[in-house]
């Protein structure tokens, strides 16, 4: 048998016997992230929708000053409640999402036909409350507008007088694209799945082998160090790939249970998405496995290698963060940058946008080239004398 295959199968077999590695590779890495993701989105969406449909509780201070306004709010779906003693503090401490305060001067201003002020007390930084605030503000504005129109009509004027410009919204995003915005973190989860999947082996086959003093005997066998490295990389990549495959399958299944329809979105999760994702990710899996092995090869011990790899884990998040902070227009060169290329490709696939074969090929080839360079670098490290010495 080819010595590379011998090394490959030995590493696979040995690591399959390690329960912790198997759990991390086959469960934690690939399943936890997508499932958690789906669960969180589900909870967020459901809460958001429930809030929109349920009556909106509105604590009001001084309701007796504006019986008309209160009646209108009740009609619009607000549930008027007694206000807490100190509204500002209640909002700051998140005991209430918002409080409406109607000052005593309201009735007087209203009677004179002057702008009557109401105070809306809320906390902008409290994202959870923003939907409620927007709803109440909408109700108040609608009431104000309706009253204004009635007053104009009473004076014999057309309501158009105060509406010189009307905006009509024409949203060009497709239902899938709206979904995509929400799922911009997803490529990172896939990349993370592959990363976690390869981690245990990358450490075990390099720093681990050195720490348990089995590297030197291994290197005495009559085969080149390139072959040893390639066999080990193959095993690491195989575990990472398994992890990724499970990630994609888990997400494809769990994705069906996401309430995307209720939000008017649709996601293109299907066999085609799974297949093209796999193609785009394949060279990245090898690249990550090689980088992990390279980083771990510099480490003297298992623990040191774990530290290096934990730091390396932050690298894949960079393009994800960049793209979510600066939503750049997709440019051709992006496909040629490993990680960024996968991010862009996966996002477009998820949104149902077209990814041409040329773009996919560029993404694949560029990352494959990077993987090859990393492999060459790792071979150089493996040839060094320092690597072999355990003590």
């Amino acid at each position: 048998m080819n010595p590379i295959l011998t090394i490959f199968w030995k590493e696979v077999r040995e690591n399959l016997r390690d329960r912790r590695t198997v759990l991390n590779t086959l469960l934690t890495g690939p399943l936890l992230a997508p499932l958690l993701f789906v669960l969180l989105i589900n909870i967020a969406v459901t809460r958001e929708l429930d809030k929109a449909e349920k009556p909106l509780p509105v604590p009001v201070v001084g309701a007796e000053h504006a019986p008309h306004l209160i009646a209108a709010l009740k009609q619009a779906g607000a549930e008027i409640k007694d206000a807490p003693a100190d509204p500002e503090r209640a909002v700051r401490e998140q005991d209430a999402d918002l409080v409406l305060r109607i000052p005593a001067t309201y009735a007087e201003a209203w009677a004179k036909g002057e702008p009557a002020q109401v105070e809306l007390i809320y906390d902008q930084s409290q994202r959870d409350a923003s939907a409620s605030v927007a709803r109440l503000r909408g109700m108040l504005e609608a009431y104000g507008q309706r009253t204004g129109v009635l007053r104009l009509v009473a004076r014999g004027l057309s309501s158009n007088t105060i509406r010189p410009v009307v905006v009509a919204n024409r949203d060009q995003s497709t239902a899938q694209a709206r979904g995509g915005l929400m799922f911009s973190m997803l490529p990172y989860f896939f990349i993370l799945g592959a990363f976690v999947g390869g981690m245990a082996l990358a450490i075990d086959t390099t720093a681990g082998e050195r720490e348990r003093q089995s590297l030197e005997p291994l290197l005495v066998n009559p085969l080149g160090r390139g072959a040893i490295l390639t066999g080990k990389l193959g095993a690491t990549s195989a575990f990472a790939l398994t992890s990724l495959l499970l990630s994609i399958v888990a997400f494809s299944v769990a994705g069906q249970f996401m309430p995307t329809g209720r939000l008017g979105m649709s996601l293109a999760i299907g066999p085609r998405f799974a297949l093209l994702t796999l193609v785009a990710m394949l060279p990245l899996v090898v690249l990550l496995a090689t980088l992990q092995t390279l980083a771990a090869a510099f480490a003297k011990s298992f623990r040191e290698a774990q530290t290096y790899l934990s730091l390396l884990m932050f690298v894949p998040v960079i393009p994800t963060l960049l793209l979510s902070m600066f939503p750049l227009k997709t440019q051709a060169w992006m496909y040629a940058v490993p990680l960024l290329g996968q991010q862009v490709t996966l996002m477009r696939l998820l949104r149902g946008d077209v990814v041409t074969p040329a773009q996919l090929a560029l993404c694949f080839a560029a990352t494959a080239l990077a993987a090859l360079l990393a492999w060459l670098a790792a071979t150089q490290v493996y040839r060094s004398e320092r690597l072999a010495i355990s003590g």
Partner: protein
Amino acid sequence: MIEVRDLHKAFGAVKAVDGVSFAARDGEITGLLGPNGAGKTTTLRMLYTLMRPDRGQVVIDGIDAAADPLAVRRRLGVLPDARGLYKRLSARENIDYFARLQGLDEATRRARIDALVDALDMADIAERHTEGFSQGQRVKTAIARALVHDPNNVILDEPTNGLDVMATRAMRTFMRKLRDEGRCVLFSSHIMQEVGALCDRIVVIAHGRVVADESPEALREQTGAASLEDAFVKIIGSEEGLAA
């Protein structure tokens, strides 16, 4: 047959090996004796091509190690200083892994492993995972995997390190058996009695140089010392690092 000619190896400013030459012949046990830090392990590492000498030549069975390291490794069975096993594999799987890497076919592998399991008296541990093995069981497994390809030359770095009395005796018997089979056996040690009891020839290394290359008897006669230990102290010129 192992020939070493004028080996040099420096780590930074430290000259670990500084002009070592000797020969270990087939059918003999050659002992590399020296205090800790004398350069024994570094010399052996250059012999089994793990390290490249700065200067000098290693020739195994007529093959230059620098020119064809793979051919040289095929002719060597090595028990290095580091002798870690794969703990999630059984002893037999550990040995079989190296047999495959040596390129042996399945029938040869089975025959060789059975023979070694028998010769090293490890039938009771062969199918067990090596996690939790005693030091002696670990060394046996490491030796079996080092010799699985039936090499003509055997290099053992401190083979009895950490072994109890019984295991040490068994190891000595096994080394004599290897010699009687006509192999070239080279081992390093810092333990006097062991070298005296086993070796046909002693190469004493101190401070990276060969300071004596004789038979045990000749060594005693040459120095006029009554015991080998006294001879050793005279040769290296101090008692430093002597842990007999």
